[in-house]
């Protein structure tokens, strides 16, 4: 009987063709608590051509069977004991694995509310009892077909996605490997900063670099028109073609010509690649390059910012295109920046585009606000802030920053550094004067020399400073003439890189007047200004004191570097100190109370030294300045310390450590000073001695003088 029924195929309404393979072999789970219903539905499905049918007696059984083997469709009775059809629906929909499983609900109920409820719990469709078999079959077929269609579409999508991912990975693999970049950085005495971002899944940009024979390096950027798969394929083809012309890599024009001839006809009509290729001789610093219409690379970091002429017919347009080798220089201390056009063409949030001039302005500003080696990342941060949406094209930005150090080993360098000093003269602070003979003050700078201060003239050329930075004689103050305008000064400061600033003393800009509040160069850390109208004598004093400060801070830093904070914890109590060296030692010891000891060491040393010099030894502020200028401070301190009047004097500091702060009360036996004048006078921070207080003030959370000025309490927040 059963066999008869199953052989007697029932036609599915609206279908003349046999069911597709996947559909007829679909696994269908029939859930009903009544055996008769299960049997009827099963037979109906078998007659419709389905033979992969399983059964569940109730809701719990259904969930167990589904968990064991996922069906392609469930036919579910709604009225069952214990777990109802509604509950089964809810549970299946709550599980992500079965959230999309087609559920065909069959029920005898016919009320509108119940039908709504059925769909509300997540059923896919509804058939009413008594079952109309052709209708049931038609609905089962429809839902199964949908399911298979969706599954194959999403399979297809998954496959495309994974293939695109693979293509993107392949494209990223075209970018130079880190070993190659390392090798180039080593040969070129340079660091490379590179950024690459494809606009859609696949891009048409590429950059690369390679070391070449004869201590040379090559670097290219290219941009294939369009983006997406087409552009990416052209990029692959261009990259592969490059490998064919190893022998041309030392000659940029020949390299581009070869690529062009090989690729004309390989690209679709209207597709081409703009390109720049340069070869740097790391011994002579000569840069030979050829352009094929890439945006003009920019050289910065030296005396002037300049662009390279990269004009030329893009590659793969006309067979007859020729390219020309041009030449420039990329000196140590300079950077070459190559980028793709979207950087200057993308619409910014205000609707304008940056343009080449705008980019150069950004680079100049970025040079001033930090290290040259991170100019591009800071510039791109700024760029992305102005981008309201996704970039319309791929973005590539590559800079090669040549280090300043390379010159040191280069004996053949014709320029003799006139300012190198033997390291034995370290104790003598020097001021390096960067000026131009057009400046009205230029001649008078020669008069800055004093017993405590050596003067080195560099003319308008800052590059000589770079050599100084690495001789080890790092006791330098730099004076830049800003009287001809801040542009001159800004240009010079841009050239003094972070390494130099870290190793040396402050950079002082002499101005013909007061600075404006917003002059950007004056906000750079380590840059101070001096009003040149005050005259050369004041300037000499100012520089001498800056140099003295610097020597002192260097000594502190060295002392801190030598002991690694392996100290006993500070015990509350009163500590005495009677000499400058004791003051310095005590300051370094106490500074370990802070996780970042340097600022606390500077602040305490400032206060302790004041106590010794002004208190114990009664050296007046002006007197001290003069002594520094004359290079006689040390002698005078020794003389007074040994004299009968001052020999037995000492200063003391009382340390009291709390949980959140540590208080230092410093007392000296001196006559004190009019501290009110420094605390009230707003211009006090421009005065030398007031600046000491401000220096200490900025490190302590509170600083209060009492007595006649010979007692100060400084509180440091931990």
């Amino acid at each position: 009987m059963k066999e008869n029924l199953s052989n007697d195929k029932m036609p599915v309404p609206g279908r003349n063709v046999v069911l597709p393979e996947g559909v007829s072999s679909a696994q269908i789970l029939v859930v009903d608590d009544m055996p008769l219903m299960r049997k009827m539905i099963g037979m109906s499905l078998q007659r419709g051509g389905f033979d992969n049918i399983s059964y569940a007696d109730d809701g719990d059984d259904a969930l167990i069977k589904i968990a064991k083997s996922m069906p392609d469709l469930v036919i579910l009775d709604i009225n069952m004991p214990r777990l109802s059809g509604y509950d089964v629906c809810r549970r299946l929909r709550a599980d992500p694995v079965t959230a999309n499983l087609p559920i065909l609900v069959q029920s005898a109920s016919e009320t509108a509310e119940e039908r709504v409820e059925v769909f509300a719990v997540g059923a896919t469709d509804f058939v009413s009892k008594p079952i109309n078999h052709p209708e049931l079959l038609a609905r089962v077929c429809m839902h199964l077909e949908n399911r298979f269609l969706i599954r194959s579409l999403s399979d297809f999508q998954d496959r495309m996605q994974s293939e695109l991912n693979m293509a993107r990975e392949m494209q990223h693999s075209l970018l130079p490997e880190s070993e190659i970049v390392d090798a180039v950085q080593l040969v070129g005495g340079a660091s490379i900063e590179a950024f690459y971002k494809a606009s859609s899944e696949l891009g048409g940009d590429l950059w690369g670099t390679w070391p070449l024979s004869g201590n040379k390096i090559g670097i290219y950027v290219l941009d294939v028109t369009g983006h997406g798969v087409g552009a990416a394929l052209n990029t692959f083809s261009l990259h592969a073609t490059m490998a064919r012309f190893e022998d041309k890599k030392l000659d940029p024009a020949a390299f581009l010509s070869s690529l062009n001839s090989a690729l004309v006809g390989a690209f679709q009509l209207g597709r081409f690649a703009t390109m720049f290729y340069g070869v740097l001789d790391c011994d002579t610093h000569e840069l030979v390059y050829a352009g094929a219409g890439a945006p003009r690379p920019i050289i910065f970091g030296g005396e002037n910012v300049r662009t390279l002429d990269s004009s030329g017919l893009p590659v793969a347009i006309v067979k007859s295109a020729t390219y020309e080798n041009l030449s420039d220089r990329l000196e140590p201390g300079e950077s070459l920046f190559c980028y793709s056009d979207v950087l200057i063409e993308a619409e910014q949030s205000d609707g304008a585009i940056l343009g080449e001039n705008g980019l150069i302005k950004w680079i100049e500003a970025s040079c001033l606000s930090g290290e040259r080696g991170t100019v591009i990342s800071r510039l791109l941060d700024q760029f992305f802030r102005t981008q309201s949406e996704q970039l319309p094209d791929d973005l590539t930005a590559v800079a090669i920053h040549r280090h300043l150090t390379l010159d040191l080993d280069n004996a053949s360098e014709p320029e003799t550094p006139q300012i190198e000093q033997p390291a034995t003269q370290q104790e003598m602070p020097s001021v390096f004067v960067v000026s131009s003979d057009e400046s009205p003050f230029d001649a008078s700078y020669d008069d800055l020399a004093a017993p405590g201060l050596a003067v080195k003239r560099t003319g308008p050329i800052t590059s000589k400073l770079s050599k100084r930075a690495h001789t080890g004689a790092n006791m330098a103050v730099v004076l830049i003439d800003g009287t001809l305008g801040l542009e001159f000064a800004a240009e010079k400061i841009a050239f003094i890189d972070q390494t130099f600033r870290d190793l040396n003393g402050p950079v002082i800009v002499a101005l013909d007047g007061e600075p404006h509040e917003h002059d950007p160069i004056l906000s750079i850390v380590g840059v101070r200004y001096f009003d040149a109208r005050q005259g050369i004598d004041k300037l000499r004093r100012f520089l001498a004191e800056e140099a003295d400060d610097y020597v002192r801070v260097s000594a502190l830093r060295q002392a801190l570097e030598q002991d690694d904070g392996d100290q006993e914890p500070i015990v509350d109590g009163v500590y005495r100190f009677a000499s400058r060296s004791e003051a310095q030692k005590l300051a370094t010891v106490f500074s370990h109370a802070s996780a970042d000891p340097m600022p606390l060491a500077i602040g305490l040393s400032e206060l302790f030294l004041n106590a010794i010099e002004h208190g114990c030894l009664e050296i007046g502020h002006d007197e001290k300045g003069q002594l520094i200028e004359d290079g006689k401070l040390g002698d005078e301190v020794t003389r007074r310390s040994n004299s009968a009047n001052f020999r037995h004097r000492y200063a003391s500091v009382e340390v009291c450590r709390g949980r959140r702060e540590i208080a230092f009360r410093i007392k000296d036996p001196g006559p004190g000073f009019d501290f009110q004048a420094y605390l009230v006078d707003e211009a006090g921070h421009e005065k030398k001695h007031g600046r000491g207080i401000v220096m200490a003030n900025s490190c302590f959370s509170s600083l209060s003088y009492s007595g006649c000025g010979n007692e100060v309490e400084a509180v440091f927040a931990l």
Partner: protein
Amino acid sequence: MEYRIETEDDNTKVVFKGDITFSENVSFRQILKELAESSVKTCIFDLTDVGMVDSAGLGMFLIAKEQADTAGWKLNVTGAQGHVASMLKLTKLSELLAG
């Protein structure tokens, strides 16, 4: 991008306005179709009012040039200013597209 085609005898002038970039691909092809269907002898692309052209835009000019060479009419790109002029100069396409 907007464009206007002016025809006088055998001479055609296409006046462009706005930016010519990758996204103008479709309307640019429409222009080329219209040119192919007319009996043009010379055609001028007037870029006076174009503010920006990207490399895909330049590629479209090259396609137009190719179509002109094949069909035996003359193409002349004129009026480029500012960014557009510097793009044409940088890529030396001004020489290739100037008649």
